[in-house]
């Protein structure tokens, strides 16, 4: 698609994020499995940092919110709070089946479900846990501007997993 055809907002996103997607990592009650695979994606073998991605300490500096794990009641408020603090345009990547739909923990008495119950999700990366390569691919899609800010969420198809 040529630049002229793209809407103004879309091309703005693209120009902005193209520079370097800064990431805030949020564990919403996961088992650490996705977390260590996400961190592995940052380290030399997979190296998301070559896209200019960087883990930041404050959501106010972040473009991308990476969420792992099913949302538990206790963290739901914090998740909303952190999402609200991020500047626009913002992307939410739900990593792992639990973050997509609640996964194996659905039905637990402190489990609310997937991330979509609390905040809008841009990309879902299902898997238990997804390979660092898959996580890399999702972040690469954001970097290349292939994903719009208001993404379609997880979708029914993936929720079933």
């Amino acid at each position, binding site marked *: 698609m040529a630049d002229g055809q793209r809407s103004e907002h879309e091309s703005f996103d693209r120009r902005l994020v193209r520079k370097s997607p800064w990431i805030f990592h949020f564990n919403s009650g996961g088992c650490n499995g996705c977390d260590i695979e996400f961190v592995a994606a940052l380290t030399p073998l997979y190296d998301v940092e070559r896209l200019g991605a960087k883990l930041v300490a404050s959501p106010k500096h972040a473009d991308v919110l990476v969420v792992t794990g099913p949302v538990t*009641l206790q963290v739901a*408020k914090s998740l909303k709070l952190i999402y609200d603090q991020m500047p626009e345009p913002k992307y939410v990547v739900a990593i792992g089946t639990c973050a997509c739909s609640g996964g194996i923990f659905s039905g*637990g008495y402190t489990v609310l479900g997937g991330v979509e119950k609390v905040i809008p999700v841009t990309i879902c990366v299902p898997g238990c*846990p997804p390979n660092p390569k898959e996580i890399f691919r999702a972040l690469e899609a954001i970097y290349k501007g292939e994903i719009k800010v208001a993404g379609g969420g997880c979708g029914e198809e993936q929720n079933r997993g």
Partner: protein
Amino acid sequence: MGRSRIEDKAYTEPHSIVEVASKTLSSYPHLVSVTAVHDEKEKSIELIYTFSDFRGALKNISTRIPEDKKTLPSIASVAPAASIYEQEVSELFGVAFDGNPFTGKRVLLPDCFPNDVHPLLRNVKQEDLEKVVAGCMLGEPQIYVTGSSRYSAESVILLPFGPYHPALKEPERFILVLEGETIVDVIPKIGHVHRGIEKIAEGRTFLQDLFLVERICGICSFIHSWTFTLAVEELLNVKPSKKAEYLRTMIAELERIHSHVLWIGLLGYWTGFESMFMWIWRLREKIMSLLDLLTGNRVHKSFIAFGGVRRDVTDEKLNTVAKTIAEFEKDYKKLIDEIMSYEPLVERIKGIGMYNAEHAIRLGAVGPMIRATGIPYDIRKVEPYGAYDEIDFNVVTGKGGDVFNVTMVRIKEVLESINIIRQCIEKMPRNENPVPKTLVIGVVKEGEAVARTEAPRGELFYYVKAANSRNPHRVKIRTPTLANILLAADMLKGYTLSDVPVIITSIDPCFSCMDRALVVDKNHNSVFFVDFNKLRKENKRIR
């Protein structure tokens, strides 16, 4: 060994539990767990206190309280480690422990959870719990400051640490009481990752639970499924083949290497030595690729089955493991030499968070934390399971508790694990089939069993009760981090705020800070919550 059927429980009356516990502690100094089991038919709750000595003997003391009068004295006065275990039972079963320091506070369940719902009681239905979850909706985040009225002096600052920090994995909150820069008290608030697994497990079959318990932790996932399997195999009276035992041992040791190496890398991250973090994590990928090769998965292995393992491993693969492990060992030794000769790092962790053996025992510490003080308490040695009784290995101990010693214990344990893996490959019987005929086990006869293993972070304890059904009647899990958390909170006392990250990571949880502050009003002796905007307004007003 490593597992046993509970047959000889010592029954005692609820009112004399403190006396009995204190007598037991003199010969069994380590309190492993406090397990509660609800019996709907007899309308009572059974409490099982499991004690252990440091040579592998277990003692179970049981007491029963009626459903309508759920009170008994707390044993926290004689065994301080009990306070957090009792609190767990009190929130999940509604049992009141007289004299427990946490009484009246929420430690585990979310703040919005109703006080009269105790999710692990058998008569609490899934539909009711779903209603509770639906009713627990988003609101303003709150900070619960427990025990704050004790601290009303002007010089005291309460600093909430947590639950989020960008770099680390688990949300965990510690409320730090500071006098100037020095920490005088720490109040843990855990349970952000409480997913109600014990309740979910009761509603699913044993086979489904095998995959569920594996997902308790992504770092020590195999050891969780192994410990659960040990308990269930005890109930079924099944013994896996020799090759299966060796394969399980090998995977568990690979997992220990990956867990310890991960932690050493994060230590670098926390002490501001990011190159160390990157180097170590690159090295760790070798181990991850081996796990992928052997089990087909990097993190959640799904490798174990009741009565064996799910897939055989060919000789060719074992040769690859031997080769890669040798490469890993060479690189690891070189890297550790380089890192530990870097003085700023060593100075940063030496003499920080000091504690002694007596302290560690009293607070119920396990794993590398207790071994760092010189006590060779390792379940692999004292109560061998898997193939550990046929393998020659040393229990690594330190010279006194501090972050440096804990680090050294973990560094040396990696080398010891490499030694174990090498022996596993050598001694493994090659012509056996480790895969059981069927994975499904069906109905399990009535009985109770406990299993203990040495997870990377320390002693892991499972209690499984079956009642002639496809689902377990009760699964109780006591993880090593819960056992270590009281020690972590205690280690912080007397150190400065800047040491907090290093000390807390030395046991392995995490924390973070957010932009809000607590104000202790000296005159009114009250604590209130100020958010960022209010604080900014106040600031303007003062100017």
